[in-house]
């Protein structure tokens, strides 16, 4: 048949499609600035016959040939009607997307190699449903939009992460073939949204001496904590946001109030996570080890972070963890990294 499958398409066609997409993206990038919210207007909406549309034209041409050769006016009338329906559907396809608002919501940070979830909010200011809308990051697989109500819906797209740091959300493509599938109306929007990608948490080994020290300290701490006559300097009221590991459960059982254990500093040495502590030449790996250790220590005690260009004072709790992880994610200063590694 003259209908080829996408799988069977030869390499030239694939290359051509890729080349066209690149050219088109280059054409668009000069026109749209990244924004939190876009409204679809004639400036950012594009419309062109789909492949099905070209087939439709082909069948219409067949009908015209039939009508012309048989000198059959009724066949010609049908042929013109089909042509006009395609013409009219240009408007329907275009207006189906026009004036739609697309907002990007704040996205949660993720660890590297996890999927970042990007939430988009679509707002319809028209009295009609927007039909057959699909969304995707440009070049990815399409997701069909289901409207929660006539006015708005939200949709979440998964984004692969493969590098720590600030991930700029790629262009998002909204596309619709509604109503007849003969035309493709689409837009490529650049969104002003970055996802913080923490380094992947990987267990690593510190330098031998320091690691001994650390191990001793750790074992000390563990011993202390397990002993019953643990010396509590004083008890503070537990406030939401403090590490759960510091709750004095014994006191809670006795008095029914949540207290936070406040260890004496000599008994509870704060662990310093240092960039230079890890015996590897690969900077990214160091950050991954730091990430793992930070996550481990968050379970148990306070810790500080020493990076080539930043120092975070010892603390604990989700806010601190987030600050630490963000610092790890944003540790971008290559010169400093090189100097740090050289020093270590």
């Amino acid at each position, binding site marked *: 048949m003259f209908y080829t499958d996408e799988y069977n398409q030869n390499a030239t066609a694939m290359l051509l499609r890729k080349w066209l997409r690149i050219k088109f993206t280059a054409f668009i990038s000069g026109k749209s600035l990244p924004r939190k919210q876009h409204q679809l207007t004639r400036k950012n909406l594009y419309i062109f016959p789909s492949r099905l549309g070209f*087939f439709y034209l082909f069948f219409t041409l067949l009908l015209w040939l039939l009508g012309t050769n048989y000198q059959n006016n009724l066949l010609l009338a049908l042929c013109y009607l089909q042509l*006009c329906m395609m013409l*009219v559907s240009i408007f329907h396809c275009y207006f189906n997307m026009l*004036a739609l608002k697309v907002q990007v919501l704040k996205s949660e940070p993720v660890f590297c190699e996890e999927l970042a979830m990007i939430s988009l909010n679509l707002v319809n200011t028209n009295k009609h449903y927007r039909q*057959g809308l699909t969304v995707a990051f440009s070049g990815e697989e399409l*997701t069909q939009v289901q409207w929660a109500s006539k006015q708005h819906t939200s949709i979440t797209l998964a984004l692969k992460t493969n590098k720590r740091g600030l991930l700029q959300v790629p262009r998002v493509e909204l596309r619709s*073939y509604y109503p007849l*599938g003969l035309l493709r109306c689409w837009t490529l929007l650049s969104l002003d949204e970055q996802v913080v990608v923490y380094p992947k948490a990987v267990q690593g080994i510190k330098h031998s001496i320091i690691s001994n020290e650390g191990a001793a300290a750790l074992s000390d701490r563990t011993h202390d904590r397990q002993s019953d006559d643990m010396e509590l300097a004083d008890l503070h009221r537990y406030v939401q946001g403090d590490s759960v590991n510091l709750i004095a459960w014994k006191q809670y059982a006795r008095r029914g109030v949540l207290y936070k254990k406040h260890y004496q500093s000599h008994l509870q040495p704060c662990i310093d996570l240092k960039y230079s502590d890890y015996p590897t030449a690969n900077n990214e790996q160091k950050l991954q080890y730091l990430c793992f250790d930070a996550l481990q220590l968050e379970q148990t005690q306070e810790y500080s972070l020493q990076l080539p260009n930043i120092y975070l004072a010892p603390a604990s709790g989700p806010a601190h963890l987030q600050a630490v992880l963000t610092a790890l994610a944003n540790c971008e200063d290559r010169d400093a990294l090189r100097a740090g590694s050289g020093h270590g």
Partner: protein
Amino acid sequence: MLCVQGVGMANQVLESKQLYLLALGLIVALVPLLSELPIWILPFAVGIYIWRLKAIKRQAGPLSKWIKILAVVSSLLLLLLSVSRLFSLQGFVSLLVLTAALKLLELVTKRDYLLLVFLGCLIAACQLLFSNTLLSFSYALFSLLLLHVTLVASFSNVLVNTQSLSVRSFFDVHKTAFLKMSIIFIQALPIAIALFIVMPRIGSLWAVPVNSGVAKTGVSDTLRAGDIAKLNQDYSVAMRVTFDSQTVPTMSQMYWRGLSLSHFDGSTWSRDKNLSLQTPKLRKQLQNAVSVKSFNYQIMLEASGRSWLYGLNTALANNVSLKQWQDYTITRQQSLEQRFQYGLTSPVYYVDQSVLNAQRFQYYTALPSTQNPKARAFARQIRNQSASTQDFVAKLSSHFRQAFSYTLVPGKSATEDAIDDFLFNGKLGYCEHFASAGAFLLRAAGVPARIVTGYQGGKWSADNEYLLVTQSQAHAWLEYWDTQSGWIRWDPTIYVSPQRITQGVNDFSQQLSNTNLFRQLNNSSWLNQWRLSLDSFNYQWHRWVIDYSAQRQFSLVKALLGEVSTVRIGMFMLLVFCLAMLPFVISFYRGKNKTISDPLLQALQLLDNKLKKHDLHRAHRETLSEFLARAAVKHPKYARAYGEIATVVEAQIYAKASVTIPEVHQLKVLIKQLK
């Protein structure tokens, strides 16, 4: 999350519910073609469809490659056997339908589905190759619409939402798609009509197999006793005539001349094999007569399966592709497989001045040597008594008037000496008997004569727009040649039964026999009226749509736009397009403004509008209560109302629960009380 993963466009796998609408569309498209197709195609297609449905529901396993190949090859062979000629219209359509049926075998992805929809559209269009009535066109439009609804349904997301499939939900699901498609259809219609009017027609690009099933009907090219009487009860339309000129012929002038039959073998009159085309001299003569006073008219001839055409008396064809012969016959290159419309001009007064040479004279007076001795003797006897040819014909006429009568059922005549039998024994006959006998008598007396066949009379349509000629009006008369005035028409029937000519055959035959129930029905006035108005409608349909030719197009576009130019046509198309699309665009922008659906926000909008009239505008970052307090200072008499509104609104906003309708209603009432 409110999303469905993995909805690519083309490779999407089909669901069974999508197939029902497609099946409906395809069957609707197929039904009118059934009579043209081999009988096994429909069961074959339905069988494959049912299998496909089961396969999609996973109730049937996939077929192996070999079974599919076997199905394709065997069905193609079967088609070859059942269609007499593959390269014919029937063969082409059968192949198309078979392709669609076989495509069902491979119906897996959405892409296959869409291809089938397109094939369906083509099949729906093909019925118009066999029938071109308004009914079949409407039906084709309907099936096209239905197939396009399947397109809309598959590209909107209504299908994904539905879980169950009952007949009711099936219709609910497709209602939105149907409505959308109807809007597109209604918008496309005026543009398509405009396109139909202005798009130039070009002739056939290459020869195509035509529908060769048209039976030969009407008057034939031979005449023997009983031929025309057979047509007497055939009320089907032979042709329709529209007069362009103001003057129209009277009933007795309406001789629709078809062929002249000049060869007589004793029982059958047939055409002259050696007839030549009209000489320039004769044509000049005709043109001169036309320039004095003439009837201009268009004839739409029904498909007769014959190649000759009819014209009023001696006619001049406007169309150069038509052939005109020396005996005023007009013919066409091919036989008429479908209706054919052509324009003619006939002179009101015409005297033929042709001269017969000795050979032609002999040809036109030739008779088989031995038959009908009594008739020969009778002719010679009368001829001897008359002074001139005219006198001789007049004597024959009075003889017919005195002794003969007209009947629809003349009974069996003798095979030998049939004319003797008719002239001296039966004396009862139909037009062909009189014409045949008259021509025989003339020839026997040495006067050149020939039979002319065609139609006589007609019936005006309900609105007097056109003349309807039916097969029952088929007639035969004759022409004789006179040295002074050339060929002269002589209709012996008129002397036997003058009403036959002046009233028209239908009214007349009603008087002759009132026993036939069908004929009574045929002539009952309301039914007749209805039939005539239906025919009138049909005629206009054919005139303006089916036979809308380049010539007609030119005159219509000229009448419509003033002149035929690209600019005007472009402007016209643009205008029609804008008019068709304007309501849609306006409704889009109007719909955009009515965005507030929250009743509370609606109420607040109302409040803002009220206060705007008092020149009170809500400042940036001003809360509603502050604003209302400000308003209360300005309009102390509404202070209480403002206070109440503020209380209600705040209760609503800060209650955090969903807005309750009665309280919003109360709010609206409060706001409306403000002046």
